[in-house]
């Protein structure tokens, strides 16, 4: 059984990951590279290119004004805010290896995407087999859609998919909220969809809503120099990419699992 799950997860992840890697190259990767030209402009104006700096200066008053609404609920998290983050987390060790722009970056990114897809495919297949004892393309698409909602859509409501250079609260606080939201939404969807009891359904609904009542950690000031149009486009494209990834993983896992069924059904 383990070998079968591993084989199906590996193949489904490979197929879906390869397709997503191509989509990514012509969508999100281009926006990331466009945004990197602005990265750091907000944090260190002295070091920024003059053009980018002017731009940041233009946008700042507006952003600060609208930002106050957001900053209020995040006041409790002020300690985990951007100042800390800029000082510690953001500047990575410049000696560490980094893929060179161009083909190397594309290939390494594609590998990371395929590995991530294989990981997600293994997890999804394992959950489907544990819950149903089998996988069909039809049931898999429902599971895949739920996985997209739990892993990408629900966390994106609190923490929008974000470009390099965007302001954000401390990484650990966001990762913690992200994990909690994914786990609560997944459990909530399961209770809502798979349990007949009204109590279980209510608990499921509460689990889905709770992370958003608690609220995601946000920075107490907005300092990104990346144009809002690029950031907005990135957020929607990123969610589309994630949806494509999950539906492809689900469809492929269903297909490969059923192929295995057909082979087993033949007289030995």
């Amino acid at each position, binding site marked *: 059984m383990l070998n079968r799950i591993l084989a199906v997860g590996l193949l489904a992840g490979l197929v879906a990951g390869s397709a997503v890697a191509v989509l990514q190259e012509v969508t999100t990767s281009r926006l990331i590279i466009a945004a990197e030209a602005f990265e750091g402009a907000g944090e260190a104006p002295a070091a920024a290119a003059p053009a980018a700096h002017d731009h940041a200066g233009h946008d700042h008053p507006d952003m600060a004004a609208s930002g106050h609404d957001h900053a209020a609920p995040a006041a409790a998290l002020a300690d985990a805010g951007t100042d800390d983050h800029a000082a510690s987390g953001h500047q990575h060790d410049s000696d560490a290896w980094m*893929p060179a722009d161009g083909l190397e970056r594309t290939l390494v990114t594609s590998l990371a995407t395929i590995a991530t897809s294989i990981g997600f*495919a293994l997890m999804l297949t394992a959950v489907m087999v*544990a819950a149903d004892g089998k996988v069909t393309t039809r049931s898999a698409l429902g599971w895949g859609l739920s996985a997209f909602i739990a892993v990408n859509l629900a966390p994106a409501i609190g*923490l929008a998919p974000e470009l390099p250079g965007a302001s954000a609260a401390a990484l650990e606080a966001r990762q913690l909220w992200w994990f909690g939201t994914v786990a609560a939404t997944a459990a909530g969807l399961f209770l809502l969809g798979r349990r007949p009891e009204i109590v279980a359904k209510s608990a499921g609904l509460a689990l889905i809503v709770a992370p958003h009542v608690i609220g995601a950690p946000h920075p107490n000031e907005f300092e990104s120099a990346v144009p809002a149009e690029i950031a907005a486009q990135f957020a929607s494209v990123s969610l589309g990419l994630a949806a494509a990834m999950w539906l492809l993983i689900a469809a492929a896992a269903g297909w490969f699992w059923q192929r295995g069924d057909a082979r087993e059904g033949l007289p030995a």
Partner: protein
Amino acid sequence: MTTSTIASRSNARQGALVACALAFLIGGALVFTTGFAGADVLHNAAHDTRHALSFPCH
């Protein structure tokens, strides 16, 4: 007879659940490595993927 059939069925079910748990952990370890691991080299390699799939990054 019946008892042993039931027993072997529940053994098979248990074995399947153990297999699912193992596969889930292997998949989780992979996702953790590409999406969350803190090492600079891993971060730099998976950087664009982390952003594209909206893992909290930086």
